[in-house]
């Protein structure tokens, strides 16, 4: 099921019948249909597209740095453990009555700060450091002040 041109979640390979793909479009349909080379000039990026614009800006800077003769930083070259930061954390923190969006932003900043703080460690030690610090957030008064004394 997982191998050459095959993965265990739907809509990634464009192998379904065309009509099915029209009625049930997924990643493959959306992305490939942008064109053989997506023409950015015809796009109109807005507030939901910050990440895309950000990625392109960063890519262009990196490409131009190579063109200018810069070398990759040593952190990108050393064959030590290469730390990545993709993760899911689910915290029991009740809804904020007036500004839950701000609460979500603040909690996200706190989660990412801890995730990055683990960069000084490696392997299991890093994982347990990050996990134990993340566990403290559900009782952190910065995020629970609206809950009262429960």
């Amino acid at each position, binding site marked *: 099921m*997982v*191998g050459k*041109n*095959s993965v*265990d*979640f*739907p*809509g990634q390979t464009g192998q379904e019948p065309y009509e099915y793909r029209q*009625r*049930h*479009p*997924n*990643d493959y349909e*959306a*992305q490939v249909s*942008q064109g*053989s*080379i997506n*023409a950015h*000039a*015809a796009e109109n990026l807005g507030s939901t597209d910050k*990440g*895309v614009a*950000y*990625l*392109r800006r960063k*890519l*262009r800077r*990196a*490409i131009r740095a*190579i*063109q200018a003769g810069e*070398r*990759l*930083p040593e*952190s*990108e*070259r*050393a*064959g*030590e453990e*290469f*730390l*990545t930061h*993709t993760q*899911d*954390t*689910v*915290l029991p*923190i009740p809804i904020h009555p007036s500004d*839950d969006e701000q*609460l*979500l*932003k603040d909690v*996200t900043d706190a989660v*990412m700060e801890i*995730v*990055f703080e683990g960069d000084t460690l490696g*392997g299991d030690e890093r994982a347990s450091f990050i996990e134990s610090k*993340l566990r403290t957030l559900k009782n952190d008064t910065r995020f629970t002040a609206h809950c009262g004394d429960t």
Partner: protein
Amino acid sequence: MSNDLPQSAYLKETRSYKNNIQVAFGGYHKAKRPIEDNELTHVGPGTPCGEYFRRFWIPVALGSELSDVPLRIRILGEDLVVFRNKQGTLGLLHLHCSHRNASLEFGVIEEQGLRCCYHGWLYDVDGTILETPAQDSKLSEKICHGAYPVVEYLGLIFAYMGPPDEQPDFPKWDTTMLPDVEMVPYSIHYPCNWLQICENTMDPWHTVFLHARVTDIHFGDTWGIAPVTQFYEKPHKIYATLTYRIEDKIWVRSQETISPSFSQVGAWWETGREEKYFKRASITKWTIPHDNENCMIIAWRSFGPGVDPEGQGD
């Protein structure tokens, strides 16, 4: 499709396209599609983006694709052949024989190298020419065939295709060394440019619409909830966060894109309803250009209690 114009031409084209008269039933004014941004999309030898990719170790094939005949591949606009010699060592060579350009995909794998079918030239995995049978000159001493260093790691074959003196060490990604996680290699071909495939991970809002609201729910039912999205940056790395309010829980998902086109995403089946901490990627992937108009995702799918808590992946 050749329009290797300077960047200024692309910007001029963008401006003129945006400045077209914008009126209802005005398709006529926008009928000509604009050119692409070649600085970010073209990847052949000598192109700016192609040079960028040629500074990193990148996966080029699945180990399982190799057999007792050579495997022809195209990476960054270069035609190549990858093979495992009979001693088990991998080789990645330019496709066309240095003698008279016959394709080495029709070559014969031998103990130490690959022999061209046409006149029997024999290549070592590093491009050294081991034999030029029946030639009375010392041709083989003057020539080295195009070759690239290769590493096989957890079922993916990685190559470094850049300047030899710029070669970085082979990285050991943390998520490939987790206990109790099985990394299963896969690849998927896309008949389009690499960037539009790579960008998807930094487009957190597509999950709300494409994967939940517009037609079907593809993954978790909570994916249709509007997330709070934020971005964080480090050198050569961008992180997108999607934070969801799921009743009395806050689900913080972070995903990343790392130079040149590495990205990871969390569990496909995550719904954010159960308390959990620092659960890692379910997919570790690269978007690798075959050429300007074809690419592949080449990746590991991770299976294990941490990344697939409900056992829904297979």
